[in-house]
């Protein structure tokens, strides 16, 4: 009784003190936001504008003045063959790494999710590449894929003339001539130089990218799978959905829609940014086969001090990334899932 009375008496006082607190907080709010807002300007907005302006010039560090070039830098990027190769290499990298790493990531997640035992073990193993320095692992792959000393080619060479060759030559398939297969011709001649060969360099760089992205995508899909309600599978079973493929096609895949949109976006943006493997292993070569955008910016703007031109590549890169992001936003708003 008394306690209640006391609270009632205190209420107006409390309200008043809160009111003064609220007016006091206004100044504090600005103070709290000031460092963050200032840094957002200095680190995001100003640099983007600077890059945008410089992309129309021939500016380079150390020069006092620069000339206005208009769209010339952009015309070079889209018009000259070596930069068309750059756009092609970057796009090809993204178009290979995104679907393959997502497909494998989803496959691995489904397999792990359906296991009764050891699922934590596989999860940890597949996630290891995400934790390791990409540069360090790129250098290890470089060594593993070394034409003569590397484990990969030595292991492949050991398989020559054994059942491994006959198996992977696919000569046991009636419509395949084993002697003409990739494995057999490589055995007779030599195994690829991998990153030193212009035909193999980009696929090899893609492979390392997939190797690294797989675990990340798998974990996102595992998280997505926990969000699929079990009742849906029961309901599907009642409706006569029996085969595993149908369950996947009709229940799992649609329910994973939002996860897929997110995974595609983040993998695509990360793939556009590939740099470590290219810088350390191929330097864009051989014959510009792996000349990706990030490396081009580094080489042109920082190594060769062609800042204006490098800025133009930066802006093109930014536009690519924004297109991907807005596509994602659009898809998310359209509700990619059916719940």
């Amino acid at each position, binding site marked *: 009784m008394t306690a209640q009375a006391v609270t009632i008496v205190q209420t107006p006082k409390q309200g008043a003190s809160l009111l003064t607190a609220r007016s006091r907080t*206004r100044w504090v709010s600005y103070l709290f*936001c000031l460092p963050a807002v200032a840094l957002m300007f200095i680190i995001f*907005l100003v640099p983007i504008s600077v890059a945008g302006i410089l992309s129309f010039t021939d500016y380079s560090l150390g020069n006092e003045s620069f000339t206005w070039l208009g769209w010339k830098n952009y015309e070079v990027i889209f018009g000259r063959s070596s930069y068309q190769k750059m756009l092609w290499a970057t796009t090809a990298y993204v178009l290979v790494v995104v679907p393959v790493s997502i497909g494998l990531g989803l496959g*691995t997640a489904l397999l792990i999710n359906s*296991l009764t035992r050891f699922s934590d073990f596989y999860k940890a*193993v*597949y996630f290891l590449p995400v934790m390791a320095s990409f540069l360090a692992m790129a250098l290890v792959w470089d060594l593993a894929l070394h034409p003569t*000393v590397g484990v990969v080619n030595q292991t492949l060479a050991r398989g020559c003339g054994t059942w491994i060759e006959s198996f992977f030559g696919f000569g046991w398939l009636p419509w395949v001539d084993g002697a003409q297969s990739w494995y057999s011709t490589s055995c007779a001649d030599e195994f690829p130089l991998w990153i030193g060969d212009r035909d193999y360099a980009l696929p090899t760089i893609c492979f390392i990218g997939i190797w690294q992205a797989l675990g990340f995508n798998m974990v996102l899909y595992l998280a997505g799978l926990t969000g699929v309600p079990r009742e849906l599978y029961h309901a599907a079973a009642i409706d006569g959905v029996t085969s595993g493929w149908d369950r996947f096609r009709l229940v799992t895949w649609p329910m994973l829609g939002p996860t897929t949109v997110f995974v595609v976006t983040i993998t695509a943006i990360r793939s556009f940014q590939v740099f470590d493997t290219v810088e350390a292993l191929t330097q864009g070569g051989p014959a510009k086969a792996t000349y990706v955008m990030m490396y081009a910016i580094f080489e042109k703007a920082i190594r060769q001090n062609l800042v204006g031109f490098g800025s133009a590549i930066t802006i093109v890169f930014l536009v690519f990334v924004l297109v991907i992001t807005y596509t994602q936003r659009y898809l998310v708003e359209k509700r990619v899932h059916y719940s």
Partner: protein
Amino acid sequence: MMGKTSPMAEALKHAMLIVGAIIVILPFYVMLSYSMKSPREIDTNTGGFFGAQEPMIDEYCLKIGTPSGEVASEELKKSCLKTPVVFNYVTAFDKAPLIRYLLNGVFVTASIFLIQVLVALPCAYALAKLRFWGRDMVFGLVLFCLLIPVHAIALPIYLMLAKVGLINSYAALIIPWTISVFGIFLMRQFFMTIPDDLIDAARIDGMSEFSIVWKVMLPCAVPALMAFAIFSVVAHWNDYFWPRIAITSDRNYFTPPLGLREFKGDADGDIYGPMMATATIIVTPLIVAFLLAQRKFIEGITLSGMK
């Protein structure tokens, strides 16, 4: 999930996952194994996983021990005899100031995280719990900056740093990362879930807004901050792109990945052992931490999935 599985199906799944796991593990195996092998074993791909550990002659030790034109004495040869694993790891630390690189890495990574928290926490608190004119604009700015990949602003930031003469300094390594818009966004979302009553109670107790942030909100946010710490530390310990741009020549500011990259310059096979030893040293801390706290790490790394 898919109902009962037959033992056959289960075995098949394990088989597929094991094949994948072998490919995933392969470079880690190569790295660890080569970090223990002698150059000859690496060249011939012999010695199994650990290498035979037969004593080998350190050519470099021979070279500095003998005056030019003379033949190395037997005694010197004996003193230059080393066990491969010891040779590789000692060379890793000797050839380059690896300790310094590692300390640089720790310093830069820790500074980045601390500054990020110092900048993001008050702002996130203001955005989540305080009412003021322009709040929506600030939040809109955060959302806009979230769209911009850091790779796109690397070049102009490099120019700005070059203009003020900060290239080749710790500041160059840290400044671009002082603001994490993602951190602000994340902490704001987290603070939204904290009841207003808690903050009002703190105000009635006479706490200033400043101490509310650090003494009330910060302790509440520890789980979210832990995840963010892992996210930030893993990203910046492993980052190669920005250090490669910001540190052009001065080895005093090299981070571990830059130190490792130096080995790739001279391509003679002898250097592979120490190079792999260095790679092992750089990769190990995070891998060990991950294996000890798997769930926390997976949560932290996939944080960006929460958007």
